[in-house]
């Protein structure tokens, strides 16, 4: 098991959000969920996550805009952002990268591989600290 981290799952698709939450919790992480971009920004302040798993197509505020807002705030400079999207065209990927996401994962994805990837990135980051 990797270092326990605080993980915020942002996705309006409940089944997939629930599953991700359960899986990360089973791995010993502390998890919170948000159903849209606005909710995400509120949870950023109250929950202070180490990692944000961010869907892109969401109501109210989409993943790209939410990512930009997070990156604008120096307090969250160390937060890892992993983008998830069912819209896997190059344009979307590029916009997400420009917004400041650290990784891009295309839906559908393997849960095990996603968890592994998040933990690996966490390890790299803590190694750099």
């Amino acid at each position, binding site marked *: 098991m990797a270092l326990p981290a605080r993980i915020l799952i942002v996705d309006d698709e409940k089944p*997939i959000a629930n599953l991700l939450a359960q899986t990360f919790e089973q791995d010993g992480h502390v998890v919170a969920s948000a159903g849209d971009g606005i909710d995400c920004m509120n949870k950023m302040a109250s929950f202070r996550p180490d990692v944000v798993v961010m869907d892109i197509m969401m109501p109210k505020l989409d993943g790209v805009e939410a990512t930009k807002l997070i990156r604008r705030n120096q307090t969250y400079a160390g937060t890892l952002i992993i983008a998830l999207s*069912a*819209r896997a065209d190059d344009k979307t990927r590029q916009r997400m990268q420009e917004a400041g996401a650290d990784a891009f994962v295309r839906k559908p994805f*393997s849960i095990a591989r996603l968890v592994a990837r998040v933990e690996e990135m966490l390890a790299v980051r803590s190694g750099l600290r």
Partner: protein
Amino acid sequence: MYSLLGISESLVAATSAQTAPLVLAGVGVVGFALGVLLWLQRRRRMAQARVMERILDGAARLTATRRLPEMCDSIVGMVGEIFGFERVVLYLWSDALEVFEARSSLGFEAADGTQVRERTVSRKDYDALLLAGGDHGPGQLVPEGVDGDDLWSGSASLIEELVSPDGEPRGYVRVAPVARGLGDAADDRHLLTYMLQQVAAAVDAAEVYERLANRNADLSLASEKLASLADMKANFVANVSHELRTPLTSISAYTELLQQNLTVLPPESLDEFLAVIHTESLKLTDVINDILELSRMENGRPVSARAETDLEQLVRRLEDGWKGRAADSEQNIEVVTPDHAINLHVDPVLIQQLLTHLVANALKFTPEGGRVSIHLSETGTAVRLAVEDTGIGIPEDELGAIFEKFYQVDGSATREHNGQGVGLAICHEIVTHHDGRIWAENREGGGARFQVLLPRRPAVVQPSGDPQSVLAPFEPGEFHQRMLHWISGSLGVQTVSLLQPDEHGESLEIRASIGLPESVAQGVRVRFGSGIAGRVWATGETLLIADVTRDRRVDREVSEPRYSTPSLLCVPLHVGGDVHGVLSVNNRIDGRPLDADDRLLLEALAPRVTELMTQYASWQADGRVLSELRESLRATTSVGHLRQESFVEICREICLAAARRLELSTTELGQLAFALRYYDVGMGCVPPQLLDKPEPLAHHEQLFVQRHVEAGLSILEPLRPSARARQIILHHHENWDGTGYPRGLTGDAIPAEARLLRLTDTFAALLSPRPWRSAFGLEEALTEIRQGVGRSFCPRTTSAFLAEAESRRYRIIEMQTRGADARDLARPALDRRGMVTPV
């Protein structure tokens, strides 16, 4: 030249008959005279040669000119300069208008201040001119006052044809005055012929060049469209893949987890996981079905699938299913219908799909505890279906685009729920298929409202039963349906019947009808000369009857049950000198009596109907022509129908009244009535985003919008509008000061009817709201028109128009203060094919 040779021969003959001294003296005199004559002749020949040289020079210079207007000016200039004619006009045949159009002129502008350009001469008038000449030299000498054209009064004129090298007549030059000696005139005429032969090739080339330039513009427009189509396609693929991937993500994630943890998971988790997989699989199936459905809809669906359907019952039948779904997610469903049947001739399967999609869409957007209401109601001309929700609504700037099949909220990835794109696109296809309209709006208290208007179109009854061929692209049954709906929509009437003589030619029988009970349609036989239709058949004259219950010409037994309004209009269908049928309309949808304006329009439509019916059989060999005809009928029917209740109706009335005040002839009025009805069909080709755009349009966007004029003409083409109607439509955006489009005509060069149409169009637009402004009040609108006089509008037609508008002041104000019906109908349509923004 022959005359000169003749003189010298007679001199030689005279010489031999004289005595010697006289002969000697005579020879001297004659020799001198001969010398002078020869010298004169040489001089004339040299002069002619110089003229010919100038002509050749000029013609050579012309070939360097590519632009047709410049070339026309040069030719006219050359004719004036070389031959010294005071008045010169060059006419070229216009394939689009099927008339000779004056393309350039000389000697008129200064004389009476009017412009000759864009005057037209029909083929018939031209042929009459040639006959009137009766002169068989080169060109045609037209005696003064033959054609009553004020341009050519005061002297005889000369017409010289412009024939292209391949022998095709391209146009002609008309010059005046021709008052000099015959010999001179003959020489001039030879030289003029010579000159036109020389320039014909250049004109030909310039015409080809002009056509190519137009084609080029079309092509670049088409390639622009293709590029944006490619963008849309890419978006569509991305959207569809998103729709497919989202449920797939859950399915694959949950199965992955099941595989890895099957033995350790507690049974309740297993149940939960499997339930998620099942639900998501169903969603996936829905998305796939939607996409397939959309592609099926696009390939067309036969109208024969339509049947008289009670929508009230249909909605009630679906209600339980919706309530079940809503209860699952703790939402409320409310269905409001009138407590009687609402029958409509529709495809029941498609309408059920439409309802299902709209309600599913509303439920998706409505939070728990929210409410979705379905309202079914009737207006005079349509059935209205509204689905409202209490969700978060739709961003205002996206209202117009959500029915686009390839729609994606531009640039942003925000979206509310899955499955949004395809379902609404299907709704749009279904509504279009029924020639109706669908649009979305936000409710004042929050939430969205989707509205559908389905035109009330009674079934067409065809007792004789045309053979239905499945292979035909536009089968005869549908042809008759569409044609009758076209007439009923254009006139706003509920009942239309087409009567034709039976096989013995003794009585009329109903070939097709709408709005009549089948028993009546089957049973009617009208004898030659009896009843209304029989009289029209016998006399070949239109009958407009104000009150059938009082008119003694009406056979009461047959007619009584048919009329819910007392007036009736019946026109003959002429083929050559014969009447081969009768069109009868009655029961105006708005309950008003049929009037002289309706008569004008129906008389203008009758020749179209005749032509379509006679041509239909020959067109069956060419599927492309038929499908164009179908689109044409569909586009014009929709416009005619849905504009019924907006301000356009009263504006049309004002326009025709103003035209009568200006003493236009009955034929002109008829063509104006036709143009008034259909002039804006081309608007359907302009992307709605441009029409609804609040910001000023960029130059290329303006050009795009301006294309609607020519696009409209090409939509109308299969209906074979008259040359005059085409002209009125072509020039209805010209401004008095020359700043309009498409030709930038000035003043009187713009046909008077087109000037009236310009006013009508503007006035109706001012009275209607636009996305970027509210509607003008009557006074504001009148002021706006007055201020445009001299710039956009012609002073004379404007004063006639304003006088007629003023006299309808109270009706307009009443309409403006009346309920939402008119407002809804005046709303810009969202459909880019069939529907059109009301002016």
